[in-house]
């Protein structure tokens, strides 16, 4: 499973990142995952993008292993089961990880509690990441379903 998870995670993250990037370019969302992740470690935008892409790729592979573990647990896996897990994954990301956890650990991101005695260079994504555009959650949902489908197809238990 290790090789499948690595390949699935790599390809899935590639697809996910591309979908989000295209959506941003055509004005669907202001979400830029690489930028958001990369600015955890640097204020330099260009360097942040490079670091963010690598970081995101690593996370994608970790999640692919988690998908594989779920497939092992239930004894089956497929592209559509992966897509279904992608829905759960997207909802979790949009309501908990990016909405609540990321602003807490991100040194440049505001939170709803950020006040005049603090600075935020990056606005918080907000519930369902709606602060980054009304369609952001839809983009997140679609891209994670594609990610899940690719991982599910690659891992097929």
């Amino acid at each position: 499973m290790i090789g499948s998870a690595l390949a699935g995670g790599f390809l899935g993250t590639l697809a996910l990142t591309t979908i989000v990037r295209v959506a941003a370019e055509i004005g669907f969302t202001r979400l830029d995952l690489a930028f958001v992740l990369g600015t955890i470690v640097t204020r330099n935008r260009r360097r942040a993008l490079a670091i963010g892409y690598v970081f995101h790729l690593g996370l994608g592979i970790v999640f692919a292993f988690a998908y594989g573990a779920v497939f092992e647990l239930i004894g089956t896996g497929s592209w559509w089961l992966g897509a279904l897990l992608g829905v759960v994954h997207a909802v979790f990301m949009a309501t908990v990880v990016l909405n609540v956890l990321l602003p807490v650990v991100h040194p440049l991101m505001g939170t709803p509690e950020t006040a005049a005695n603090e600075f935020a260079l990056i606005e918080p994504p907000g519930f369902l990441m709606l602060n980054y555009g009304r369609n952001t959650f839809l983009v997140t949902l679609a891209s994670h379903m594609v990610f899940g489908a690719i991982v599910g197809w690659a891992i097929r238990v």
Partner: protein
Amino acid sequence: MRDGDGYVPIEDYALIGDGRTAALVARDGSIDWLCLPNFDSPSVFASVLDAARGGSFELRPTIPFTAARRYLPNTNVLETTFTTGRGSVRVVDAMALPNGHLGPTREIVRRVEGLDDISAPVPMMWAVAPRFRYGTAAPRWEWRGRVPVATCDAEALAVSAWDAGEPEWRDGRVAAAFELSRRATSTMVLGSAHADPLVLPGRAAAERRLTDTIAFWEQWTATRGYGGAWAAHVLRSALVLKALIFAPSGASVAAPTCSLPEEIGGERNWDYRFCWIRDSNFAIAALLNLGCYDEAQSLFWWFMHATALTEPELHVLYRLDGGVGGDERTIPLPGYRNSKPVRIGNGALEQTQYDIYGCLFETARLYSDGHRPVDDDIGRILARIADHVCRIWREPDSGIWEVRNGPFHFTHSKAMCGVALDCALELASRHELPADRVSRWKKEADAIRHYVETECWSDRLRSYRRIAGDDDVDASLLMLPILGFTDPRGERARGTIDAVMQRLRDGDFVYRYRAADGVRGREGCFLNCSFWLVGALARAGRVDEAAELMERLIRRANDVGLYAEEVDPSSGAFLGNFPQALVHLALIDAAIAIGRAEQA
């Protein structure tokens, strides 16, 4: 102080804020405006728009009194001293800033102190009457021990009070009476929660946050880099600006209020709780000139993020969370002194205003000049926007004043498109924008300049025109020399300044224009126009005139140094939303312009 209907003059208000929301405190100690949890959330107190049912937090002596106010030096913490026949009571009001310890999500601390001149206990009262959702939803009151808590869906307010009487619930509000002796203190805390559990603070923790809040504002002001003339007023304006920056995103709200009228009883009532791109260049310039580099970077990054959804087309204004929604609608409140309708949201969202492109590019240029170069990503976005300017500048628009009877070919809009392309060329020359479109930008910039100098210049007026082809003037034309589109000391700038003074000036004040604009009723004089006149005079070398007008305008601030959007030139009464960031930004610009002109 209050009229028969329960309203106070707008100039009787002072602002307290924490960078997330703000409250208006009246001279008589009543908090009459508060939106929670953010500037653009629905109101909890809106007595300023509905004195009978809008909701407020009163705190005052119950015997006759006079009131004097000031901000504690170099802070956004308000001090009101009530003087009665039995002696004086001091109230310190602050929106407390978090200090690392657990506290309410938003918190107003009111500390009351009996002064040494008290001869007999001073009877006091406080009453909290929240009305959620712009006064349309009455709260459900409950008790947590001895603490009254008002709830409405996901919102909750707790009123904690120490040595301030026994609160009682009556007629939809919680109130208490108490007496204050010499050197006695009472403390009240209004803590709020939004979609999370309330935190009920202890007295020591709340007072510690008040002390820390005062210390933060003092320290912030002490590190501002301005030592020129009118320093106290410039720093007060900086403090207003800082209070109006929405800290979670870095956006700057134009004013914390909605629908304070431009004409008493009139319909020119708008919601200013948005971030206008138009204010951005003044805001960035002020922040950089005052050494607020973090705030400047935060605001610039916010602009580039907010515009990412719509670029190369820009919206006139954006919500504080960066969104472009915010449909205008009316709400069933009677309005300040019966000024209807009360609007929330802003219809200018739908308008086309081309001057904002110049404002954004000027912002980028100032940011690059004063802080750090524009990076590649932002450079590519700006290049696309510059291309867009090349395509659109020939079209009419609604102009800087957002007229509702347009579109027209406003001179100011054309000139600002020229400013946009001039800035793009300058940034490209520093390799901060791609160089491959420079020839097109140069060609279109020249075409704009030719258009403005021919179609928008009137030999009869000896001035630039408000609209190409007409023979009227507009205070926005003062921006042409201020932003360097035309030589500030040149004949055309001097002629335009004279024409504005001759046709639009009324005493110390300047009207925006005299023409119809598609909205019924009259309006006062926009105070930013007066400060623009000061800035234009200073840049034209007419420094004495500028300084003299500046002195007079400084005296027109209210007792705590704040300005509303407009003033009634006949009475000096404030009109419009309050306090307005653009007026304070224009004040900072005018003071700096005079200082530089004197040095030159």
